[in-house]
């Protein structure tokens, strides 16, 4: 006789079927309209250029460098006669709504043990004001932080050339991303703290930093490991169809499918992780856990 596992990953897989309808639309839209570029693509391109003996230059700062890091997807090509950025903006609206839904569901499930969805607008109203400041802060911080990273890469390109430049900039990028995700996971308990205890954003943020600071390696290493594993899997999915068995026309399909699964995982994992960890650190009683008698 024992309690069920308290981990967030277990929670996601156990309640997968309940969480799926809430986040399937935003993750599908993200897979289509979020920029395909990423730092991985940038470094692959740079490695190719260096291998062929070319010269790396960042003459156009945005297109050559910053667009690989930025979350904002500014594309000039139009879909159905409308600029792509409007689709991107609409995706983010849907994303925030989906996250609010998932967050409310997870919170209610953990507090009350019920699987009911409830009214759409009431759910949205319940968690929008708690979730939005955190997401907005993290978005702005990501943009500014990657801007700093791009400046550092330009400075390194002045100092070093060739493979030394590649190694240096890869190292700097890893450091910057680690610092960002450490900060991200320090404040990740802010929304549940605002929801459960009714603090304002500032107090909730400092309480969250205090809680995660007490369990620093537990929370931070979990987030970092999840980032690393999911990025590695996405990278493998990018490489596989080129190398092995599929003809060229399936490249896009595999990529979109992989990115869909990637975003789906993150949209399910983030609310579950924050609420489960909040319940664990503050020793709140979880109503969704059942006692297993036979195992």
């Amino acid at each position: 006789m024992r309690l069920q596992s308290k981990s967030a990953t277990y929670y996601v897989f156990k309640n997968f079927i309940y969480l799926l309808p809430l986040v399937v639309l935003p993750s599908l839209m993200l897979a289509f309209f979020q920029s395909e570029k990423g730092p991985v693509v940038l470094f692959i391109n740079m490695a190719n250029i260096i291998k062929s003996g070319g010269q790396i230059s960042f003459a156009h700062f945005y297109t050559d460098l910053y667009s690989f890091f930025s979350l904002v997807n500014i594309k000039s090509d139009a879909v159905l006669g409308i600029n792509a950025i409007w689709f991107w903006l609409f995706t983010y609206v849907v994303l925030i709504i989906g996250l609010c839904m998932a967050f409310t569901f997870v919170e209610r499930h953990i507090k009350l043990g019920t699987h009911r969805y409830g009214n759409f607008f009431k759910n949205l109203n319940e968690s929008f004001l708690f979730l939005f400041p955190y997401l907005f802060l993290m978005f702005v911080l990501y943009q500014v932080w990657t801007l700093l990273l791009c400046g550092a890469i330009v400075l390194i390109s002045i100092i070093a050339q060739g493979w030394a430049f590649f190694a240096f900039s890869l190292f700097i990028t890893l450091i910057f991303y680690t610092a960002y995700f450490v900060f991200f996971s320090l404040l990740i308990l802010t929304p549940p703290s605002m929801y459960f205890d009714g603090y304002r954003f500032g107090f909730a943020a400092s309480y969250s930093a205090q809680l995660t600071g007490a369990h620093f390696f537990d929370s931070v290493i979990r987030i970092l490991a999840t980032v690393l594993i999911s990025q590695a899997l996405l990278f493998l999915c990018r490489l596989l169809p080129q190398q092995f068995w599929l003809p060229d026309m399936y490249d896009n399909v595999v990529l979109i499918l992989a990115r869909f699964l990637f975003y789906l995982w993150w949209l399910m994992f983030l609310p579950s992780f924050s609420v489960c960890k909040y319940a664990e650190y503050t020793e709140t009683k979880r109503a969704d856990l059942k006692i297993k008698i036979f195992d």
Partner: protein
Amino acid sequence: MHAKKTFLLIGNNYTTHLKSLLLQILAICFIVAIFGLFFFNFGNLIVKAIEKEGLVRKTQELISYLVNWNSADQTEFSQKILSYIDSISQSLSTIPNFNVKLATAIWSTIIAGYAVYFLVGLSVFPTFFSVNQFMTTNSKPFYLWSVIKKSVDSMRMMALRALINLIMDWCCLFLTLGAYLITFVNLGMTGIIISLLIWAALVSARSAMLAYWLPVNINETSKTRQAFKSGIIYMLDDFWNLFLKSFIVITITSLVAFSIIFLFQPLVVLILTMLLISLSSYVLNCIYFVNYYELKGKPYFVKKVTVTYSDDNA
């Protein structure tokens, strides 16, 4: 003159300075990125014009000429310097639509200069808040915490301090350049060293004038202008003491920087000079803090003290 105490303070808080160096590098990255986003095109034009006129090569020629100095050819040297200054203005005028872009260029240079002074200087206040904490309580606060907690105070102070420093630094530079071109240009190497000393004296005078602003702002009042006034009043009591110390530090720094020019590549020289400037400003501020505490007659710590209880003479 409290030299031992100052050296102990500098050595014991050196890790704080290293952390502030990281912040300064981040600030420089930020400026580069912002300029990359908005003004990269104009920057590329300037770089191309400099390459076309061969300014870097001419600078290296001038330096190698200085190294192999011969006192016989003084008039030739002054000719060379005048042609060098001429080629700078020549390279600027080769930029297309220069007259149209001149106003934009001047304004963006002023804004960029102010941004450099402001953003790089933002790390000074938290660093010396931490050092001051060490001097009063013998314990170092968590650096990132002091950065976040003191960010508003730091910005309020730096907005004014960056402006004053920028204007006074440019004034010092132009005064020295004018004096050199009018008076010492025919003296060759001697003239350069004399004008370097004049520059050091001017800069150390401006550094000594603002010396007590930071300690007063941290210790006595959080109002910037109030702190500026009381800092000036305290400064008048021992201006020459401060001036002498600043002059020694700045002269040594500038001589080291001057000798570095002959040794390395231009890029390495730039990086090393920036590190030197950061280090010397840290040393200067440490000297001012020790002087401030001595002036006010307050007790202070300069090294880690551990108190132990012994049973023998209890």
